């Protein structure tokens, strides 16, 4: 039921940009090039968002900037009989492993070190591959963005653990545990890297793959 004019770009496997059109990233509606606002959902249209990479890098640096103190400052401050013990992320992990709590140790290590560091590297790699046209394999790209989009937010689990631990222990027992400034920095770092990933115009990554397939 599609006339020649609209079926042609589909048959040739074109993107909206290659067909001289603009697709809405929020709802998928297709517009003529030069349209400012989506007629379906009202979102602003960009054939490719030129500001996207700048936003990605801005949030990326903000995230990295607070991730450093998140590792150096205490996540938890424990008081036992007047004695204060500060524990950082790494210090906490070492303590768990030493006590034989491998499950907690590994969850905290994954959520607070492996996932955030992996996310910084993945976002930087994707952004650079778009900026400088680095070669990037289709499968690898897919895995990378999956990591960034779906796994990145799981880092927040550590902030919830700190909050719950402190809330429970503060119910008035001999020891008291309060969250440290490290927890604030860590929460901010996760939020900034999530904003960095959300600013990414993923279509730009697929454009690069298309160019390589054709050459």
């Amino acid at each position: 039921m599609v006339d020649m004019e609209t079926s042609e770009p589909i048959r040739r496997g074109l993107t909206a940009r290659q067909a001289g059109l603009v697709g809405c990233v929020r709802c998928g509606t297709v517009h003529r090039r030069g349209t400012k606002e989506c007629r379906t959902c009202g979102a602003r249209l960009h054939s490719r968002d030129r500001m996207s990479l700048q936003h990605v890098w801005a949030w990326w640096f903000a995230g990295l900037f607070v991730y450093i103190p998140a590792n150096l400052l205490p996540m938890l401050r424990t008081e036992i009989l007047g004695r204060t013990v500060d524990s950082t992320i790494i210090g906490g992990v070492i303590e768990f492993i030493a006590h034989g709590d491998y499950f907690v140790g590994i969850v905290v290590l994954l959520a607070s070190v492996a996932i955030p560091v992996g996310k910084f590297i993945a976002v930087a790699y994707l952004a650079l591959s778009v900026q400088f046209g680095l070669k990037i394999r289709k499968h690898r790209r897919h895995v990378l963005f999956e990591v960034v989009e779906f796994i990145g937010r799981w880092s927040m689990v550590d902030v919830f653990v700190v909050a719950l631990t402190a809330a429970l222990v503060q119910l008035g027992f001999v020891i008291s545990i309060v969250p440290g400034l490290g927890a604030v920095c860590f929460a901010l770092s996760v939020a900034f890297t999530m904003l960095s990933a959300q600013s990414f115009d993923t279509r730009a990554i697929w454009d690069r793959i298309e160019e390589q397939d054709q050459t």
Partner: protein
Amino acid sequence: MTDTDLDRLIACPTCDLLHEVAPVEPGYKARCRRCHTVLIAPRRQSMDVAIALAVTTTVLMIGAVSFPFLSMSQSGLQKSTSILGMVAIFDHGLMIVAGAFVAMMVIALPLVRALALIYTLLPLRLGRKPAPGAKRVFLFAQWLLPWAMTEIFIVGTMVALVKLMGLASVSFGPAFWLYCILVVVVAFKDASVCKWSTWKLLNQSAAA
């Protein structure tokens, strides 16, 4: 090409590849040929189900905030804390920032997303014109998706429990069970909404 011609096309939001819009049977999903992003996924009685699940989410959240979440007992003393009590731990200086984060991700945003869905869909279900600003509300709810962290909070609870197990005996309050049900209901609610179909409906009823 006119707008009507262009309405026969859909561009993948993730990779920009053009597809022809074809009727999709309820329960089936149309995915992008290149990157496999779900483009169209209509459901049977989708609006009734989505509204019902959004209302359930709201009720469960009110319950989860009102009742004790966890209780801890040590040498005969038993005390319990609610989710709000946990947020209140971050009570001074920069800590308030972290407290606000936890409150948003665990309580406020899942609730806002459920209410936004009711606000968007209920007038359509009743055959009325969309509520004022319905498009913006629906867009915002989509954007908020990764920021509502109900399932991550439950995993955090498990880790905190294992961590404190040696210290005292910890038991679950009613709010914990309500929150677990909420995690499942939210997942079904999010899966019940087909963005493409909802946008079409929003535009049809705005024009009618």
